[in-house]
């Protein structure tokens, strides 16, 4: 049963790939999110406009369309540019890079809002205190604002990571060999679609459950220094 007619290892490899794509998307997406929040809270109108259009566009377009757009559209753009420079071959872009970028784009757009809210909730007095003891603005951000904003952002980011985990299944549609893709290969060879997709569903369920538990611990860890009102 667990051998899955010899496709067990492939499914396991797919699950590992899914985890890699998810963490890749998380890391790059956090960078996008921070940059987006920075842009939206910026003093400059242009940057605010860029941040605003990023979140509006990406949050209004289906994730799968972003995945397809980054993969096929990205390839299209690169080849149009290459042809413009007189290159007549065909350039293919890496599926993993395209998949991670697409997922990170969509994660980052939502993370922008989470970070923005969290940064705005850091008490003003904290920053004034930092200014008063003569910290420079970059140091204030890394030492004072970000650590405190992170604590407030963890619940929101955790939920977004759950969404990201489930969205990794979308990159199977651009033929990245993750869990869904390998389940499909197994199903095509054995003609047992239910078995394979059900196993895939259970693995996803296991991954999301583990992340959920991790989320609880992360929140507990982040709130270590905060006194809670006891009821």
């Amino acid at each position, binding site marked *: 049963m667990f051998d899955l007619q010899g496709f067990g290892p492939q499914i396991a490899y797919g699950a590992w790939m899914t985890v890699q794509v998810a963490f890749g998307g998380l890391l790059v997406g956090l960078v996008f999110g921070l940059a987006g929040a920075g842009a939206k809270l910026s003093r400059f109108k242009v940057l605010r406009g860029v941040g605003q259009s990023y979140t509006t566009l990406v949050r209004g377009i289906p994730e799968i369309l972003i995945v*397809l757009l980054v993969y096929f*559209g990205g390839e299209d753009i690169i080849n149009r540019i290459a042809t413009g420079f007189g290159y007549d071959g065909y350039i293919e872009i890496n599926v993993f890079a395209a998949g991670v970028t697409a997922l990170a784009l969509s994660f980052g757009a939502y993370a922008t809002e989470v970070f923005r809210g969290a940064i705005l909730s850091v008490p003003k007095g904290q920053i004034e205190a930092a200014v008063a003891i003569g910290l420079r603005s970059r140091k204030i951000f890394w030492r004072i604002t970000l650590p405190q904003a992170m604590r407030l952002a963890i619940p929101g980011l955790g939920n977004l990571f759950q969404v990201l985990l489930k*969205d*990794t*299944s*979308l990159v199977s549609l651009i033929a990245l060999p993750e869990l869904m893709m390998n389940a499909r290969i197994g199903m095509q060879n054995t003609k047992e679609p*239910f078995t394979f*997709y059900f196993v895939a569903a259970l693995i*996803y*369920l296991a991954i999301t459950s583990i992340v959920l538990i991790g989320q609880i611990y992360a929140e507990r860890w982040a709130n270590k220094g905060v006194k809670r009102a006891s009821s």
Partner: protein
Amino acid sequence: MNWEEIFIALPKLLDGALLTVELVLISCIVGFVIATPVALMRSSQNWWLRNIPLIYTYFFRGTPLLVQLFLFYYGLGQFEAVRESFLWPVLREAYWCALIVFALNTGAYTAEIFRGAIQAIPHGEIEAGVAIGMKKATLYRRVVLPRAIRMALPSYGNEIILMLKSSALAYTITLFDLTGVTRTIIARNYLAIEMYFTAGVIYLLLTFIFIQVWMRLEKHLLRFQKV
């Protein structure tokens, strides 16, 4: 940008958008009908009533929609019993499969949203209902449900937008929704960027229109809160 090709493709894309809207509308209505009793069970005092629907919401919220679609559309045919049952003419059709899966999926998310709202109703309001002698059914019909749905409106609106975006997956089981039509057009004219861009704009427009309608609805239903 090849604007001419975009104009040629536009009528077909709008046809696809129509199917997208139809899928979202029907599945959200059915999802709402599923979610209400599930949310009531999930917020019940009885352990069994509370935790049996958890299997449903946990599965549908913990796995990707794509897996659910494939499990229903490709998976169910594996069983002889399903293929010979009277349901097969329905389950064989991609359209019905998509509707069933979308409705179950959004139903699970909506149920958890409603549960949160039901549990957030101030105790005093329920106690007041009990105090003036409302029966349990009346209490739910007159106090709990109307109050919970109003509280859940913002998150429920978000869920419908997420459903609108998720409905793009219908193309993976051969349906010609907006994304499906876009892909067939690209297969013919190879203008990936132009066509995906146009589809993206249409999705944005749909989201925008929905938000406007939803804000009106919120304003109407929450008019008592006006100071």
